[in-house]
């Protein structure tokens, strides 16, 4: 028996919004420590890794490890039926081929349950090595979303270059070029608005704008986003979800001198 209860359905709704454009289906691996999801997008260029810890749930019970393959478009449809303040409970029997979502309104007057068929997905899991990154940049997530949106108008790829002066995002294309520089904030009034750069070595990498735009769908999950980069390894874009876990996106860098 698997049962996980969240007081606010909005977290799960936002998580789905954050992954459903990138992935069509994914496996939720549940064990007694929590729920994990790892999946590559169809083009195998990026990887999504989601962790929701058991202690972050209002109630969490997982007798036996289960993996539930879900069609994310269908799951998203179901979650749209839940009100933001509703309590959501995910339930599944051991070896079940369906999962049940129960939504309860705050005053317990309305209870709705939705059953969804599970899929048998045979997805490969990748081992992600612990890496010491040369640069980590923390910035307000809305700021990052804005930068990605603005720069994607100029070109398909975005260069992120981190030096000791700060971090520079740039793109160029038919209409011209754009550069956005961010320096470390000197005085921090609010931690959420700070730009913090930790750098051992300068790094410059190129990424597909569109993928970064997909990642910023997670903006509502966290006020801050952390970018980690090292030369010739994938970029990590991490959004922490308060009290319960995080969502990490990995994006492979573009190959240089590619004919465009």
């Amino acid at each position: 028996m698997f049962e996980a209860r969240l007081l606010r359905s909005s977290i799960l709704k936002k998580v789905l919004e954050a992954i459903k454009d990138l992935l069509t289906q994914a496996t939720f691996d549940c064990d007694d420590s929590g729920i994990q999801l790892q999946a590559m997008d169809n083009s195998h260029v990026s990887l999504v890794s989601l962790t929701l810890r058991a202690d972050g749930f209002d109630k969490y019970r997982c007798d036996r490890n289960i993996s539930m393959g879900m069609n994310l478009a269908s799951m998203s449809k179901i979650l749209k039926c839940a009100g933001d303040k509703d309590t959501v409970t995910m339930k599944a029997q051991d070896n079940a081929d369906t999962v049940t979502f129960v939504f309860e309104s705050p005053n317990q007057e309305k209870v709705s349950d939705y059953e969804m068929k599970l899929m048998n997905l045979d997805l490969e899991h990748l081992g992600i090595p612990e890496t010491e990154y040369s640069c980590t940049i923390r910035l307000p997530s809305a700021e990052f979303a804005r930068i990605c949106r603005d720069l994607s108008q100029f070109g398909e790829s975005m260069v992120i270059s981190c030096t000791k002066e700060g971090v520079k995002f740039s793109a160029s294309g038919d209409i011209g070029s754009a550069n956005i520089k961010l320096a470390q904030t000197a005085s921090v009034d609010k931690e959420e608005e700070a730009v913090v750069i930790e750098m051992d070595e300068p790094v410059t990498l190129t990424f597909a704008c569109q993928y970064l735009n997909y990642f910023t769908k997670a903006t509502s999950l966290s006020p801050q986003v952390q970018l980690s980069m090292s030369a010739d390894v994938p970029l990590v874009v991490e959004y922490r979800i308060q009290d319960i876990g995080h969502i990490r996106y990995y994006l492979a860098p573009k190959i240089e001198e590619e004919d465009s």
Partner: protein
Amino acid sequence: MSTTRNQRKPKPFNSPCAPVAPKRIENSWILLLPDHLFENDNFSIITLPHPANGNPAKFSLNSKLKKIYEVVTFKEPYRSWFIGETVKSNGSIHLVTPVNPLFLVLPRLRELCRSRAMPLEDLLSEKGFEKIVDYVNNLDCIGDIKGSPDMKAYKYNEEKTLSWLEGKVRQLAGVLRSKNIHVTSAAASVTFVTSNICNQSVDEEFFLKYASGIISEYLESELIEQLEKRFDFKPDLIESVGKKRKSDTQQTMPNKKLKSETDEDIKHVLNDSNPSINDWKELKKQKPLTAKEKARQKAASGTKTISAFFSKK
């Protein structure tokens, strides 16, 4: 039990007197192999998507000679085998025929590497393809190498592919001519000798069409069209040759069309030896891409695959 009409002796059972348990007979099947595959210790049969239609098909590997063979099935009703003292009611016969690995890789390259380069190892990392990575060379015939040669990252090149296929067709047409294979329409007995001996009068184009028909059995329909355009065949001729070929193949080569009907049987028979049979279903589902997915693929062009960085668990 049905009668057997077959004259050939099954090779794997050379000593007909040897007692074989009936249970084993039930789970066995008849496979004709060249000798050198017998010497191969780790002879194995694997499942890969068929290059023409993506349906699962069986292939066997010779790790010594680095060759891939396609397992083709020939089956007629009312056919059984005598094995030792028992009768096996399934009278189908399986043969192995060599196949160029490039044909197997081609659909995958066309699918994934149209707009971006991908290392060979990543390209062949799924769906059973990982087993044939070592067998593939000459990828230059159908793609361009990008980046450093060590990485072996290739991008699909249609022009090169068509030239390569054209070469294959011409080569095959030459073989057909030298072996006096009957390629024009209307049925003919194998033993029937026409007055115009040696097909000399038969137009070169008939051979080419016949050859391209054979090659096309390993190509996706889109590519077949391209290839036909390249040879500029007249449509009516293609049709008549195509029809002819269907009735003729039984004499000249094992019939691929029959194979799809008997897939079920192979599956059944192979079930004992091959635990990974569940792959069959998965290989079948391939949905067309939505506009969103296409846009994403376009955006992904020029990016390395993420699995190049992270090892598989």
